[in-house]
C-alpha cells in the first residue's frame, strides 16, 4: 500500500509539474548530451578500431621514387615489423563524362596473387580487377556514389600521360580512406576525388615500375618502437628516393577522425556539467520554497510523531522523482540523438559497418551523477526540515527581514518608484538565488556564444585563406618536378590569365631536439595569386634568404625570428643546410614553410624546377582550359579553389544548421527553465504582496512590472557575464581544436554576442510572461485572507 506521505508526494508533484518539468528538462539535457557525446565517441572509436583490426590498417606509411621489390625482404626484418606491404601509388587526372572539371584519382596497386596484406579492402560489390588487366578498376564507394557509378560503368583516366578508359568491376572501402580528402582540398569532395585500385602488374607496366614499388606500409608488433621502425625504414628507402615515413597518427584520414573524437570528448566534459550545476541549484531553490510553504505541515507531522528523517526523506524523494523523470527523458533523447549523430558520422566518414556502442555503464554513470547533483542541491533544503523544531514550524514565520541598501542613498535611486524598489530589494535580499539565476542565464548565453563563434572563426578563416592568401582559381600539380619552362606552357593554355610557379620539396626541419617532417614551398618573392601573409594578414615579400615559418611550425620547433634551423632535404641530393628563420607568418591549414624559389632551387643544387603552378583563368574559357589540361601528360592533379570553397560552404551549411538547432534548444532549455523556476518561486513568495498591490488599486500590468523588473535586471546582468564566460569557453575550444592539420582563428563577432543574447532574452521573457499570466489570475481575496 502506498504510504500517505507518498500520496502527498504524488499530489505535490502534480501541482508543481511546471517547475518539476523545467528542472527535469535541464537534467535531461545534461544526461542526453553526456550519453550522446560519450555514445558517439565510443561508437566512432570502436567502429574505427574494429575496422582497423579486421582490415589490418597499417602503423607506418612511407613513399619512395622507385624501390626494388626485393627491398621488402629487408623492410620486414626491421625490428618490431609484423608485416610490410609494398605497392604502387600514383595520382591521375580523371575525365568523367558530364563533368567539366577534371577529378583527381589516387591509383593504388592490388597484388595479382593473394590478398592485400595490410589496409585490406572491404568489397561492397563486384570484384577486384583481374591480374594484368589495364582497363579494370575497383573504386571507392563514395566516389562511385557521387557519380552514380556501378559495376560496368566507365570513365577515362590519364595514367602516366596516356588517357585510358577504365571499367569499374567493383566498389570497395578502405581503412586508409575513412576520411577521403583529395590533394589540395580542405574538405572531402567525393565527386572530385576517387581512389582507384588496379592490378599491380597493370600499374607496373603503366608507370614503368616493373619489379619496383613507390609506397610501402608497415604493421608493427605490439610494443614495438614506432620511432625506431620509422628511422630504419627511412634509412632503407633513402637510396630509392624515400621522402620520410609517417606514423599512423599523422595519416590524414586517421588524424581527421582523431580531431572529431577530440571534439566529442570535449563536448562530454564541458556541456553536461553545466546542466548538472544548473539543475542542482534549481532543485535547491524549488525544494527550499516548498519546505518554506509547508512549515506548518512539517510541524504537524512532527507533532503527530513522524520521525524527522522520515519527513526529510519525503522531501528528498520529491527531488529524486524529478531527477528520475529527467534521467528518463535524457536516456531516450541521448540514445536517439547519439544514434543520429553516429549515422551522420557514417555518412561523412566512410565505414563499411557501424558499431553502435550501447554501454550500460554510461547510462549508470549519467544517472548516478545526475542523482548526486540533485541530492547535493536538495541537501541544504532537506536538512532544514530535520532541524526545524515542531513548535516553531507551526507558528507562522516572521515577515522576511529587509534593510535599506547602501546604494539607495545615491541620487539616481530617487527617481525609482516604490515598485522598482521592491524589485531591487527582493533581489538583494536573496543574493544566492539571485546569483545562481544570473549564472544560469549566463551559462545559457555562453553556450550559444561557444557554438556560434565557430561560424565567425570559420568565416574569417575562409576570408583569410580564399580571398587574401590563396587567391588562385586552381592549382595544377605535375607528376614530378618539371623544368621551369613548364610555366610558359601553362601560361599558354587557353583561358589562363596568370600563372605562378611553386616548388614543393619534402624536408625535415630540426631545432635542437625538436624536428618535423614537412614540405618546404618555394615561391617567387612577390607572388600575387597565392600570397604569404604575416601575422597581421598583410602580404609578405619573401626575403631572398632564410626560412619563413608558419606560426604552428615555429611553435612545434620552438623557434623565433633569427634562430637557426637545420634543414635535411628528403629527396634528390638530400642536401643538409642550416638557415635562419627570417619571418613567422600566419597559416591556418597544414604546416607551412616558405622559401624564395631561387634560393630553394639553389639549396637543392638543381636546375630551376617547378612542382605545381597556381593559375587564374577566364571562366568563359573553362571548358577549353580543362580539356587542354586533361590532355597534358605530366599533370597528376588539379585542385580548384573555387570548387573547394563551394564544397566547404556546402558542408559547413549542412552541419551548421544542425549544430545551431541543437545548441539553441539546449540554451533555451536552460534559460527558459531557470527563469521560469525563478519567477514561479518569486510569485509563490510574493503572492500576498502582489494581491495587496492589486487591492490598493494597482493594475495587473503595474503589479507584473515588479516581477518583470526583477527578471529583466537579472537577465541584463546575466548577458554580459554570459558573454565573458562564452569568450572563455570559445578560447578553450580554439585551443582544443588546434592540430597540425588546421588551426582556427579566434574570432567572435558582435553579431554572435547579440544573437546569443537575443535568443536567451526571448526564452527568458517568454517564460516570465507565462508566469505573469498567473499574476493576472490571482485570487485577491484568497491571497489576502490566508495566513502566510
Amino acid at each position, binding site marked *: 500500500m502506498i504510504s500517505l506521505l507518498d500520496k502527498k508526494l504524488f499530489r505535490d508533484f502534480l501541482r508543481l509539474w511546471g517547475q518539476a518539468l523545467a528542472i527535469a528538462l535541464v537534467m535531461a539535457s545534461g544526461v542526453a548530451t553526456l550519453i550522446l557525446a560519450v555514445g558517439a565517441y565510443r561508437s566512432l572509436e570502436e567502429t574505427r578500431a574494429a575496422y582497423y583490426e579486421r582490415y589490418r590498417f597499417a602503423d607506418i606509411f612511407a613513399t619512395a621514387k622507385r624501390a626494388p621489390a626485393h627491398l621488402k625482404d629487408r623492410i620486414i626484418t626491421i625490428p618490431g615489423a609484423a608485416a610490410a606491404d609494398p605497392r604502387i601509388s600514383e595520382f591521375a587526372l580523371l575525365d568523367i563524362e558530364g563533368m567539366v572539371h577534371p577529378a583527381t584519382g589516387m591509383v593504388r596497386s592490388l597484388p595479382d596473387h593473394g590478398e592485400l596484406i595490410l589496409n585490406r579492402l572491404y568489397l561492397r560489390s563486384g570484384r577486384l580487377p583481374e591480374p594484368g588487366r589495364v582497363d579494370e578498376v575497383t573504386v571507392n564507394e563514395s566516389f562511385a556514389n557521387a557519380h552514380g557509378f556501378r559495376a560496368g560503368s566507365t570513365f577515362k583516366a590519364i595514367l602516366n600521360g596516356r588517357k585510358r578508359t577504365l571499367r569499374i568491376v567493383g566498389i570497395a572501402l578502405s581503412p586508409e580512406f575513412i576520411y577521403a580528402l583529395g590533394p589540395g582540398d580542405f574538405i572531402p569532395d567525393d565527386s572530385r576525388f576517387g581512389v582507384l585500385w588496379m592490378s599491380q602488374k597493370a600499374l607496373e607496366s603503366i608507370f614503368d615500375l616493373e619489379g619496383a614499388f613507390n609506397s610501402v606500409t608497415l604493421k608493427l608488433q605490439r610494443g614495438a618502437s614506432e620511432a625506431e621502425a620509422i628511422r630504419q625504414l627511412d634509412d632503407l628507402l633513402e637510396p630509392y628516393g624515400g621522402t620520410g615515413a609517417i606514423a599512423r597518427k599523422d595519416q590524414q584520414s586517421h588524424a581527421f577522425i582523431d580531431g572529431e573524437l577530440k571534439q566529442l570528448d570535449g563536448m562530454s566534459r564541458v556541456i553536461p556539467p553545466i546542466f548538472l550545476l544548473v539543475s542542482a541549484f534549481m532543485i535547491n531553490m524549488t525544494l527550499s520554497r516548498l519546505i518554506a510553504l509547508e512549515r506548518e505541515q512539517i510541524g504537524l507531522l512532527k507533532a503527530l510523531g513522524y520521525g524527522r528523517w522520515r519527513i526529510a526523506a519525503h522531501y528528498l524523494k520529491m527531488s529524486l522523482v524529478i531527477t528520475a523523470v529527467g534521467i528518463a527523458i535524457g536516456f531516450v533523447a541521448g540514445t536517439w540523438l547519439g544514434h543520429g549523430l553516429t549515422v551522420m558520422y557514417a555518412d561523412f566518414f566512410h565505414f563499411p559497418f557501424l558499431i553502435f556502442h550501447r554501454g550500460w555503464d554510461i547510462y549508470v554513470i549519467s544517472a548516478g551523477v545526475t542523482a548526486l547533483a540533485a541530492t547535493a542541491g536538495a541537501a541544504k533544503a532537506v536538512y532544514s526540515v530535520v532541524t526545524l523544531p515542531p513548535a516553531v514550524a507551526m507558528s507562522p514565520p*516572521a*515577515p*522576511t*527581514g*529587509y*534593510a*535599506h541598501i547602501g546604494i539607495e542613498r545615491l541620487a539616481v535611486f530617487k527617481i525609482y*518608484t*516604490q*515598485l522598482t*524598489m*521592491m524589485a531591487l*530589494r*527582493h533581489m538583494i*535580499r536573496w543574493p544566492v538565488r539571485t546569483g545562481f539565476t544570473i549564472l544560469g542565464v549566463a551559462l545559457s548565453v555562453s553556450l550559444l556564444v561557444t557554438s556560434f563563434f565557430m561560424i565567425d572563426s570559420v568565416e574569417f578563416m575562409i576570408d583569410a585563406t580564399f580571398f587574401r592568401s590563396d587567391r588562385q582559381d586552381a592549382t595544377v600539380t605535375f607528376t614530378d618536378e618539371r623544368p621551369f619552362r613548364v610555366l610558359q606552357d601553362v601560361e599558354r593554355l587557353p583561358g589562363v590569365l596568370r600563372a605562378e610557379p611553386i616548388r614543393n620539396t619534402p624536408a625535415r626541419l630540426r631545432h635542437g631536439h625538436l624536428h618535423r617532417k614537412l614540405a618546404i614551398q618555394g615561391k617567387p618573392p612577390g607572388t600575387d595569386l597565392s600570397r604569404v601573409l604575416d601575422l597581421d594578414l598583410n602580404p609578405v615579400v619573401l626575403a631572398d634568404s632564410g626560412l619563413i615559418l608558419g606560426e604552428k611550425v615555429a611553435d612545434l620547433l620552438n623557434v623565433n625570428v633569427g634562430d637557426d634551423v637545420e634543414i635535411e632535404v628528403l629527396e634528390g641530393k638530400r642536401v643538409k643546410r642550416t638557415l635562419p628563420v627570417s619571418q613567422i607568418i600566419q597559416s591556418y591549414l597544414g604546416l607551412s614553410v616558405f622559401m624564395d624559389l631561387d634560393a630553394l632551387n639553389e639549396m637543392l643544387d638543381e636546375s630551376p624546377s617547378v612542382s605545381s603552378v597556381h593559375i587564374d583563368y577566364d571562366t568563359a574559357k573553362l571548358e577549353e582550359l580543362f580539356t587542354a589540361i586533361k590532355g597534358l601528360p605530366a599533370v597528376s592533379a588539379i585542385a580548384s579553389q573555387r570548387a573547394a570553397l563551394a564544397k566547404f560552404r556546402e558542408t559547413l551549411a549542412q552541419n551548421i544548421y544542425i549544430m545551431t538547432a541543437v545548441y539553441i534548444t539546449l540554451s533555451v532549455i536552460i534559460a527558459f527553465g531557470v527563469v521560469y523556476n525563478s519567477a514561479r518561486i518569486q510569485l509563490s513568495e510574493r503572492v*500576498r*504582496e502582489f*494581491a*495587496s*498591490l*492589486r*487591492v*490598493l*488599486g*494597482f*493594475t*495587473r500590468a*503595474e503589479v507584473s512590472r515588479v516581477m518583470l523588473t526583477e527578471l529583466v535586471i537579472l537577465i541584463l546582468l546575466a548577458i554580459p557575464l554570459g558573454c565573458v564566460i562564452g569568450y572563455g569557453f570559445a578560447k578553450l575550444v580554439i585551443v582544443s581544436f588546434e592540430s597540425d592539420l588546421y588551426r582556427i582563428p579566434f574570432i567572435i563577432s558582435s553579431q554572435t554576442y547579440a544573437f546569443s543574447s537575443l535568443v536567451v532574452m526571448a526564452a527568458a521573457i517568454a517564460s516570465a510572461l507565462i508566469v505573469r499570466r498567473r499574476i493576472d489570475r490571482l485570487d*485577491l*481575496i484568497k491571497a*489576502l*485572507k*490566508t*495566513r*502566510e
Partner: protein
Amino acid sequence: MREPLFEVEGLTKVYHSGDMEIHALRGIDLALYEGEIAVLLGPSGSGKSTFLNILGGLDSATSGHVRFRELELTSMDERDLTQYRRKHVGFVFQFYNLIPSLSARENVGLVTEIATDPMTSEEALGLVGLEHRLDHFPAQLSGGEQQRVAIARAIVKRPEVLLCDEPTGALDSKTGVRVLEALTSVNEELGTTTALITHNAAIRGIAHRVFHFADGRVGRPKVNKRRVAPNKVTW
C-alpha cells in the same frame, strides 16, 4: 443624516462549488452614509466579508445593484473596478498585508504614487501615531504597528470609503484599541466613511450604526445613540 454614499438593492451572491450552490448573500438592501462608521457584525459564513468585498470592488455580485455615488459597481468590468479601488477605496485586512521589502514610509508611499490628491506619507503615518517609525521595515514593527501602517496606507489617498475586514482580529485588546483609535480619528479628521467587519461584539460601541448579518441576510441597522470611545472598549 447626510447623503448616502453606497446604495445596495437586492444584492445576492452565489458561489458554485462542484454541484453545490452556496448562497453567500440572499438579497441585501441597505445604504451607507457619508462620514459614518458602520460596524458589520455576524458569525462566520454570515456573508459580511462577501458583502464588503463587493463594496470594495474585489468581488462581483450575482444579482442586484450596488451604487457608489453615481457609479454602478455591479456593471463595472475588472479594469474599471481597479480604477474604482485606486481612486475611492481604502482597505484594511486582518493580516496587514504590508510589503516586507518596503519601509513604513515606502509602504504608504506606494499609494501616493498612484493617487491624485494624497497627503504625504509622513502625515498619514502621523495620523495613526507612527511618526517615529517611518523608516522601519515590517519585520521591525509589532503587529499593532503593522496594522496602523496598513491603515495609514489605506487613508493616505484621502479615500471616500475605508473598508476594514477584522482589523483587530489578530491583535490583543491593548494593541487593538490603538488600531481602533487610529480608525476613529481618521473618521473624525477626514470624514471617511468606514465599514468595519468584526465578530467581536465589544467593538460595536464605536460605530454610528451597527448591522447584523446572519445567513446571507442583514437585519435592520441599530443606531448607537451614544458612541463609546475606543479606549473604553475591552475584550
